[in-house]
């Protein structure tokens, strides 16, 4: 890296319907130094994004209740907020690059926390002012 950046200036949105997993993902992001928001559903996630333009990373599960799943959310976010980086995780599906929005990253559950942190840091480094 070698480049200095300030993670707290990069906000992450964690979308996960399981409270336990969501709590752990949120803690992981906070621990890594990022400002972290959370949402249980895709619809909630859209509202959070609308209120927090500083969010630069979407970290979402795929399976969730509501009007859309994580993949649809990811595509919608890519459409509405093109700069937002996208991380996707799932325990059910092996997602291929073709399913993901451009530059999206996939992590199979259960994921190694360090991989997520490394990905977040790389994103933060790329978009650092």
């Amino acid at each position, binding site marked *: 890296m070698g480049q200095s950046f300030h993670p707290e200036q990069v906000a992450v949105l964690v979308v996960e319907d*399981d*409270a*336990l*997993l*969501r*709590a*752990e993902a949120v*803690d*992981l992001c906070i*621990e890594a130094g990022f400002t972290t928001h959370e949402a*249980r*559903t895709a*619809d*909630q996630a859209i509202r959070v994004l609308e209120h927090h333009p500083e969010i630069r990373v979407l970290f979402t599960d795929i399976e969730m*209740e*509501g009007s859309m799943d994580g993949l649809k959310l990811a595509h919608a976010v890519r459409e509405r907020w093109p700069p937002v980086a996208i991380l996707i995780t799932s*325990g*059910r599906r092996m997602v291929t690059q073709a399913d993901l929005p451009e530059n999206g990253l996939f992590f*199979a*559950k*259960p994921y190694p*926390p360090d991989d997520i942190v490394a990905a977040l840091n790389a994103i933060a480094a790329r978009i650092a002012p």
Partner: protein
Amino acid sequence: MTLHAKLGADVGQTDSLRMADLFCLHDWASTPLGRREIWPPVLRTTVDLMLGSLHPMCVLWGPRRLFLYNDGYAEILGSRHPGALGRPTEEVWPELWGDLGPLIDRTFRGESFAFRDHPLTMTRNGFEEQVWYDFAYSPIRDERGEVVGLLNVTSDCTARVQAQRERDGAIERLRVGEGRLAALVEASPDSLYTMSPDWQEMRTLHGRGFIADTDAPCVRWMDAYLFPEDQAGIRRTVEAAVARTEPFELEHRVRLADGSEGWIFSRAVPVTDAAGRVTEWFGMAADVTARHRAVEQLRESEAFMRGVLASSNDCIKVLDLDARLTFMSEGGQRVMEVSDFNALEGCPWPSFWEGAGNIAAREAIASARAGVACSFQGYANTMRGNRRYWDVQVSPILGADGRPERILSISRDITDLKAAEEARAVLVQELAHRMKNTLAMVQAIVTQTLRQARSMEEGRTAVSQRLSALGRAQDILTRSNFTEADIHEVIAVTIDPHRVAEDRIAWSGPSLTLTAQQALGLSLATHELATNAAKYGALSNETGRVTMSWRVEDGAFAFDWVESGGPPVAPPEGRGFGSKLIERIVASYFDGEGRLDFDPSGIRFRLTGVPGGTAVEA
């Protein structure tokens, strides 16, 4: 010849004028006999006697055996009449002279001869004729007793001899024929029988060992040879044949000589007399028991095979080498829902298959034609359009020359198996997902616990206890297929390891179904509260109590944990994972709130939310 014809026409008249005329007209003077007037009296007398007889006679006279004959004899001479008259006998019958000359000489020496049916070969008409004659030679003596002539009284018995010979021949042929017939009958293993014209009576039966003999006429022959239940049918056939008077054939069951059941093929013909009346029926019966049993066995074996084919739910088909349907088993028609096989016969079999199955079917046919069996699976519709998945084996049926002659195709409906396989695949997929989800939960619990642990020891204990609580909750879910669980069961299972005395932990509330996540969450929360109570709260002394209660009012769920009688409660210095789990995470599963109250008289926890996790906050 005219003369001869005339003479012939007059045979039978009492006078023999013609020869008498010839005797008168003949120039006797130029012969050794001389004029007739000077003939010795014995000659004249003999000639007169001869000429007066209708019976063929001739006289041979003197050393030269001069030939004299009457009208009866003229016929015997054929074309030699009338030139023979008065000539030496040797010249008249040169072809006979060698045989008869010695006898004639002996007659002249005084002997008499009589011959019956004596064969002679005459050339009297210019060709050889085989004839038979009766004749008698008698010497004629003069007044001194000297033999001077020979009288031959003869008759042509050729017709009689020939008739006799023909009859003898016919009799011989008949005898040979009968002998052959007898040999044939003897050589045949068939039994023989004779019946009265109306079949009421059996006259004889030679059973040849396989059925009993009948030697004397018998009217109860049916009882002797036939089983009671067969008699009526056989009687009808017999009566119809008797009415028509025509040969008839019948294969029927009989009682064999040893009393066991057998089968005979019987053929009977009516025997008629010269007037055309039936005098008896003659019949032969062959023992066809072995053949009948073989046929019966074949029929049984065929019925067995048919039964097997019919009862199999496999669709068994035979195709020709061009893959056209020629046969489909009954069971096959059932599973293929075929109502009329005639409509299918000759149809190309691969066309029943869709998509990849069609290609596989064509390949299977090509393989079978090359003599190699193969199998495939694919979808094909039944005749009623129901889609089925089939496991198909296609094999060549080899002819006597070892080359594929036809093709056997056996299709088994494995639609259910296929569906079960697919369901299993889905289940495996789902299981993998749940396992990963559980691992993710484990990961979260471990990470969260270790993040707050003050020592490895504390972390290890907390992790083990929490995972153990998670495991027990999973047990409940496993029993209910991972989708839901009753709250009573969840509480009971979670509290069980923490129970200290019968009455110190109590709970009450209505039966309530929780979602899988709610069950896991409530289980983890209760575990945290109980662990804390055992360490610091109501369960840490000898008297404290824990009371849990829940209710549902107006669709809202409320759960209370109330401790009492424990040591005084002091609020903790910081909030750990336990608190977070209780207040935030579990509450989220119920779409509600969790509130932990560190009341000095005892910790209280209230969880509110939606039961059954129905509504999701939008």
